[in-house]
């Protein structure tokens, strides 16, 4: 029982004190008998206040501390560390959230907010009164990281982790690595092609001994916690063994009678059921797509390496940390959205990029040469009506770059950009300048008055009330309309729900803190990188991949890790073994033990996650959760009431 407490009430600049009368809070809580000293402070988290707290704790031999400030998600650890530095057990610190849950939530009601803050602080005082000194649980960590997603971000992260000296499992769902980037040709800013980048990465990857690359591999099971996760990975075989004779293989592909829309070219072309993504793909081995194969056996007759006897297998990977880099999907416009699928010559930006790559001397679509191209921006982004409120960030620059590329490659092309205001942030602005100087025409409308696409004589006519020309109605007769589609979260991404990764309002995976902790997640040990966290360009994806790599590395680089000692505790005197707790536990952390002949429940501390599911099921109330014990919770209820 702690009886000599220190309480600090933070102004948080004005975030708290503008709405909560902090002096009054101090006065009220100072009257509590356990409180030895109560202070207000401008910034509790500032170094000088931290120093002051330490001095107070040491000088007055305080046995418990409460800081009433912002959400514990931000500063719980900060003040625990303060307590620790002052020689206090860090669990004798309790955090009271009077910002998010008092001053801000009730900024419309100052006296209400103040009254609430007083109760909150009092409850925290009660909690710390019963707090026990605890020692963290130490667990050994496995020095390896599983990188989920073998696109650019995943590959880059894997490479970095491996050179940091960590064992890496790179898990790619497709049979080829490189993700979206391998589909792009020339790239801003360096002019390298996507394939070149992926080749560089792949070559470096294969030189590393400590990287295991798994393709056709999907994560299907997940358990464990930071330091020791366990993943079940289902591997779909290629149905081709060894290295094929190139000539035979070519023929085998030719004879395959099945035609499937080729995802690599976003459905612009057709591929066979046995296929390559592109010449020189990685790994350089074709695949039989069994879901579309009709088992005619024609290919088998030509190439002996084709082997339908290969079986799916499920392997288990144990790893200390997981880095998620599952990427994005390009937005798919609805049928009829700006003429998509209803007007003949409307494509999406990714399709357009493939068209440029595939065109040789002329830009050809559906057998016709393209001269006039209309780009319609913000398709699937910044939606006034739809659910994608966000800006996809990369598309303005990407489109402008393609408009320059297409003109350079094929000449004699007119580009018309139907924008919602160009967002070439940073140095990308120079590209916008370059494209307008080459004669590209930019038109603009707002979200409430988008351009319209109609078909006329085999061409697409785009009309707009151009705000740059005094809202005049202007029209362009285009040979091709490119819908500048943004990024959306992958819709078939089981990894998110498997790992229980929280998502933001935009449905991308959410980081812990948008500003200062952009790659960590609330699931300890799991980091996120690249476009699965939100739209990004290549450089930004790589930066986030490397940041995630260094965070994951710091989880696993030490042999041991500390875990919160929040586990269930059995009162063996009360327990009379009924087994209800065992069946309630989702982690198999409770087993039956014999205590001097009496069967009782026992907790396996390294497996117990501290969820508390066993607590309410106990018929004799023999289970407490450490730091959430009856007397802690009940005294808090008392203080709040």
């Amino acid at each position, binding site marked *: 029982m702690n009886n000599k407490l220190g309480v600090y009430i933070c102004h948080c600049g004005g975030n708290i004190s503008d709405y909560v009368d902090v002096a009054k809070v101090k006065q009220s809580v100072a009257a509590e008998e356990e409180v030895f000293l109560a202070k207000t402070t401008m910034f509790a988290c500032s170094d000088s206040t931290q120093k002051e707290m330490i001095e107070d704790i040491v000088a007055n031999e305080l046995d418990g501390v409460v800081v009433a400030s912002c959400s514990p998600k931000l500063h719980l650890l900060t003040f625990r560390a303060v307590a620790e530095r002052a020689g206090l057990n860090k669990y004798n610190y309790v955090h009271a959230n009077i910002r998010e849950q008092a001053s801000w939530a009730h900024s419309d009601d100052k006296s209400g907010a103040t009254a609430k803050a007083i109760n909150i602080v009092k409850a925290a005082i009660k909690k710390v009164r019963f707090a026990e000194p605890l020692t963290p649980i130490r667990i050994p960590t496995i020095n390896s990281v599983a990188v989920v997603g073998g696109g650019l971000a995943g590959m880059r992260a894997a490479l970095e982790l491996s050179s940091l000296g960590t064992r890496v499992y790179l898990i790619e769902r497709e049979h080829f690595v490189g993700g979206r980037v391998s589909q792009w040709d020339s790239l801003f800013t360096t002019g390298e092609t996507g394939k070149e980048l992926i080749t560089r990465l792949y070559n470096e990857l294969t030189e590393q001994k400590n990287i295991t690359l798994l393709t056709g591999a999907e994560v299907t099971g997940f358990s464990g916690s930071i330091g020791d996760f366990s993943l079940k990975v289902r591997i779909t075989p290629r149905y081709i063994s060894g290295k094929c004779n190139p000539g035979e293989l070519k023929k085998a592909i030719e004879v395959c009678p099945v035609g499937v829309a080729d995802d690599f070219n976003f459905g612009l072309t057709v591929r066979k059921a046995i296929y390559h993504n592109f010449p020189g793909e990685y790994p350089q081995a074709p695949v039989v797509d069994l879901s579309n194969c009709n088992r005619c056996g024609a290919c088998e007759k030509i190439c002996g390496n084709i082997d339908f006897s290969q079986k799916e297998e499920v392997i288990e990977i144990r790893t200390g940390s997981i880095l998620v880099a599952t990427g994005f999907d390009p937005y798919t416009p609805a049928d009829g959205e700006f003429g998509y699928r209803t007007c003949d010559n409307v494509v999406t930006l990714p399709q357009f990029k493939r068209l440029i790559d595939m065109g040789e001397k002329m830009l050809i679509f559906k057998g016709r040469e393209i001269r006039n191209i209309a780009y319609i921006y913000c398709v699937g982004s910044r939606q006034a009506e739809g659910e994608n409120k966000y800006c996809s960030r990369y598309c303005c620059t990407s489109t402008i770059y393609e408009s320059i590329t297409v003109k350079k490659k094929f000449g004699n092309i007119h580009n018309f950009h139907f924008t919602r205001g160009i967002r070439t942030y940073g140095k990308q602005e120079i590209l916008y300048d370059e494209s307008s100087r080459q004669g590209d*025409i930019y038109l603009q409308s707002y979200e409430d008055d988008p351009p319209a696409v109609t078909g006329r004589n085999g061409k697409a006519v785009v009309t707009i009330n151009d705000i740059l020309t005094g809202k005049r109605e202007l*029209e362009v007769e285009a040979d091709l309309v490119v819908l500048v589609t943004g990024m959306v979260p992958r819709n078939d991404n089981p990894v998110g729900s498997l790992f229980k990764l929280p998502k933001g309002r935009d449905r991308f995976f959410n980081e812990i803190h948008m500003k200062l902790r952009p790659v960590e997640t609330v699931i300890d040990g799991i980091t996120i990188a690249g476009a699965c966290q939100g739209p990004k360009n290549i450089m930004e994806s790589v930066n986030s991949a490397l940041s995630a790599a260094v965070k994951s590395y710091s989880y696993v680089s030490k042999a041991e890790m500390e875990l919160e000692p929040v586990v269930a505790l059995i009162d063996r005197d009360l327990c009379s073994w009924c087994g209800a707790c065992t069946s309630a536990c989702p982690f198999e952390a409770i087993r039956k033990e014999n205590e001097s002949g009496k069967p009782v429940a026992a907790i396996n501390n390294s497996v117990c996650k501290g969820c508390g599911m066993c607590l309410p099921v106990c018929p004799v109330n023999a289970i407490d959760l450490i730091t959430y014990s009856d007397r802690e919770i009940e005294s808090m209820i008392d203080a709040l009431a």
Partner: protein
Amino acid sequence: MAVVNPSFGEELKKYGAVDFNACYNCGNCTAVCSLSTEKDSFPREMIRFSVVGLEDDIKSSLKPWLCYYCGECTTHCPRTAYPGELMMSLRRWLTSVYDWTGLSGLLYRSLPFSILAFALTTLAALALSLGLKTDLPAAMHYGHMFEALAITGVFAAILVPNIVRMWWLVIIRPGKKVPVANYFTGIGELFVHMFTQKRILGCDENRLRWFEHFLLVIGYLGLLFTTVVLDWFSNTSLLVTGFGYLLSILVFSITMIFISERFRKNKESNRLSRPSDWFFVIWLFLMGVSAFLVRVFLDLGILANNQWIYFLHLTILVQWALIIVPFGKWTHFLYRSFAIYFNRILAEIPDK
């Protein structure tokens, strides 16, 4: 509904427009322009029309003529899109639109054609001078007659029809309903602007620029009056002689300043000079100088032995009267005055 026409921009480049495609429509040019008003906002609108190729809207617009090219818009353009030069090019383009003969456009677009025109007129003048070589007084008589004839001829055949075309393009074709009385009440504006060019005063802080232009207009028109009406070269009145001297000195000294400024490229307005700009100042200078010398030779009594100076003057005169006045930059002086007049007339009819 208007169709976006990128080829119009290509056409404008032949008239000297550069990099206006770089415009990102911030409107800074319009905001820094001190002649731009809420009713007549430019140059951005003109740049925009040029980029998207709204040819008809430019044809019916008077805004290009409201600009006096102080260059502030270009100096402060965040995209270095040379808005001032675009306005200048639009003036050239409009000149060729107004001109029914089509020669104006040819001269602007093609330097070889301009040179050819100058060469042909030189030959014609030379032929004339060879034919009259021995008889200076006759030559001077014909020269004087040519001046008067050329002025009336050029005005009647070319300039007046072109002004009518301009009027048709900006007032009649767009369907503006202008009460006839307005034409009379506004007429003062036409002459005030023609003789004083006072709009320049609103242009920038530099009053000297207006004063130079004012002196040049006075000098030029005065010299025209002195030579054509008062027959300066034959007039014996001391007053007229002295007046003529003063005016010709005014013309060539101010044009001298203009030429040297064009050489030094000291302002936005002369950084991107086109041949038509050079021809205009140089020929005006030559006219002043040669007229001055003819009179000096006359007064010194050495003209008879140096007839070439008169024939040189005559050649320059012919070129000036047949090329630069009807088709060249001289017309800007006229169209601009009319533009301000029309604008005044239009300003009086209420907005729809």
